[in-house]
């Protein structure tokens, strides 16, 4: 009986660890994506298109590194929005459409911040 209780508590701790890892992963990688989005924004302000495209490639690489696990633990609709935003932004940078690219970048940053905020252990997120 005591052994059963110990096993159940260990399994609950295991679930807790998985949840903590998932939370850490989302916070970490959304933070890295936000950091990688900053050079894109700066290059866009300067209308430096080659630099913006280079920064965009780094942002896409960051996404490619983390997307598989991210898609397994985050809401699929949020992930689709993020993916679509990244693809649109890359296209707009190719077309050198400054206003639309700026708008899309803001939308991407907002989505990433939203994902980050949703994961934080705030009372308003719990209730």
């Amino acid at each position, binding site marked *: 009986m005591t052994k059963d209780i110990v096993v159940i508590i260990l*399994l609950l701790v295991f679930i807790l660890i998985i949840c903590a890892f*998932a939370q850490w992963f989302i916070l970490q990688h959304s933070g890295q994506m936000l950091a990688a989005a900053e050079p894109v924004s700066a290059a866009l302000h300067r209308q430096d298109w080659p630099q913006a495209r280079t920064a965009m490639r780094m942002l896409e690489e960051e996404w490619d590194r983390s997307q598989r696990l991210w898609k397994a633990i985050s*809401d*699929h*609709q949020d992930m689709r929005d993020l993916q679509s935003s990244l693809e649109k932004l890359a296209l707009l940078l190719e077309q050198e459409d400054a206003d639309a690219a700026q708008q899309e970048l803001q939308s991407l940053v907002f989505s990433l911040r939203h994902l980050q905020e949703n994961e934080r252990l705030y009372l308003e997120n719990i209730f």
Partner: protein
Amino acid sequence: MAILLIRSIALYIILLLAMKLMGKRQLGQLQPFELVVILVISEMASMAMQSTSATLFSSLIPIATITLLQILISILNLKSEKLRALFCGKPVFLIRRGVLQERSMAQLHLNLNDIEEMSRAQGYFDLSAIENAIMETNGQLSIMPKSAKRPLQLGDIEADPPEEQMGVLLILDGHVNQAGLRVCGYDEQWLLRRLQTLQISSPRAVFAAGIDENGQFFCQKKAAGREKYHD
């Protein structure tokens, strides 16, 4: 669509495992709280099955957590009387020594009609025939009738009936039940010899055979024969 199929299979296995781990109680024996836990788990599973936009992970974690907590509480209930009273409540007398317990009825939000209904379901159409009625923690009413009103039992007429034993099936649709043989203290050789006395060469020709509650061997051949042999 293939995703839905795979998710459904995965969730089915998870639910099967969760229900198996939670124990084998029948629906009617569940505590109200256990019933709610099962409904919550089934709701979470059905949401994950229908919607591919939610991750399987987001259903798996709550299902696993609730299942483990439920098992933990069940074990603690077994260990501690106080915890059992806290989680499951206590049986309550609704009729004690023939007297209706108004306070208990009010506590359980039951009126006289409810008690009459539950008594009728148990075969007691007259409340005055009941000595004690207890509302069990699973919501069922247990009734102890007054001595004069209870059904006659063999002990009342000082009869001494022979002890009965549990019937065991030893062959089920051609397959020998080895565990059943061990329970009865026999082996397969004994079974084959019994079949040979009935001119049956193999257990595969038998639909059902076993030992009945009186300790007698019985045997029924498969479809074509339909003969039933008995000791």
